[in-house]
């Protein structure tokens, strides 16, 4: 159904998960919702529930405890879904790299589609990352321009 595929890239609902970040990136993610950036222009809504989400936005490095939760949440997001790692820590572990309790970046646990680097990642970068993810999704479902 063309209309469904076309809609899939118009309405990304986001689930934001914080592993063990310093909260810098989380504040930037929330900043996207403010009138200054207003991601709802693109139909993005910040959901509190993986079952309603399309895009899993993860901040912070994965530690041993959050790895289990992250996997559980990912499995509860219905297909088609995208994962965006926001911030240096989520991409690679950042300053926490090689800590005793840290596994590393999100890609140690989940297949990541888009990496948004930055410490903390700027809201523009995050929005850009989501748009990039959507383009990837568009290619996957075959409605890319």
């Amino acid at each position, binding site marked *: 159904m063309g209309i469904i595929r076309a809609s899939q890239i118009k309405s990304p609902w986001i689930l934001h998960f914080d592993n063990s970040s310093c909260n810098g990136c989380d504040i930037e993610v929330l900043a996207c919702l403010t009138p200054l950036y207003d991601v709802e222009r693109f139909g993005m809504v910040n959901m*509190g529930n993986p079952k309603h989400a399309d895009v899993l936005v993860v901040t912070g490095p994965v530690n041993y405890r959050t790895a289990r939760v992250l996997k559980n949440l990912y499995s509860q997001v*219905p297909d088609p879904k995208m994962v965006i790692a926001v911030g240096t820590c989520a991409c690679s572990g950042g300053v926490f790299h090689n800590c005793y309790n840290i596994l590393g970046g999100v890609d140690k646990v989940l297949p990541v589609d888009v990496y948004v680097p930055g410490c903390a990642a700027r809201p523009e970068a995050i929005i850009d990352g989501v748009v990039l993810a959507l383009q990837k999704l568009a290619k996957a479902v075959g409605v890319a321009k």
Partner: protein
Amino acid sequence: MNQVWIAIVAIIVAPLIGGLLAGIDRKITARLQGRYGPPLIQPFYDFFKLLGKTRIATSRTQFIWLYGYLIFMIAALVMLVLKQDLLLLVFLLGFAGISFVLAGFSCKSPYSHFGANRELLQILAYEPVLLLMALGVFATNGSFMISEIFESSTPLLAKLWPIFIALLVVLTIKMRKSPFDISTSHHGHQELVKGIMTEISGPYYALVTLTEWYELVLVLGLIALFWANPLWVEILIALAAFVLELIIDNINARMTAGWMVRFTWAVGLVLCILNIAYLYFMKGVS
């Protein structure tokens, strides 16, 4: 035969109107918050996107209750456009609500149960007001039939304005707007994850969205009955009520479920009772 066509047209057109109203809702809300807001047809994008998602569920019977929700809502709408019995319409609307509650109960999820219990309290809060509205209409027109409303020359609002105010409170509950967005909310975040909607995802979510569009049209239709003739006033009064709800939504915080029941019973019921008592009294005098 004519009636069948009216019903079919209503069933097709109502969700379009409902979806568009939902879009207007998001746009106006965004503007009130100083944002630009999503496109007007964003609710339709959301709807179709949800249809394309995988159907994951936590219970095998849940979708049957969601169907019940949709079907009884449509039935109530058909009763409205065919100008049938108001009382029966309210009963159907009530069962639609119950069916939704049972959908919430039918999986073992704490959030969903909280939401369902709260939804039940909402039904307890608004159902008497709706039934009393029907009684008020009877006291004015001498009939429960909606068709009679259209035949009378004076608008209901003249005699039933207290009930109209009570109905606006019901509209707030039905549209899931603050201060009554208690069982679930259209905004992303709330304290019960997503309340009764927590375990309803993908196409099932789309089903609920569709039903809510029907519901919106139906409840606004009930509001419009208060000034049934001519048509443009009818539409205007419904739209005015709709915009009023959006403003109420944006200037209020969410209240507790107990407060909601107390408020609707203390304010809504008392308004209805006074109104009906007055009507009966006047009838007795004349």
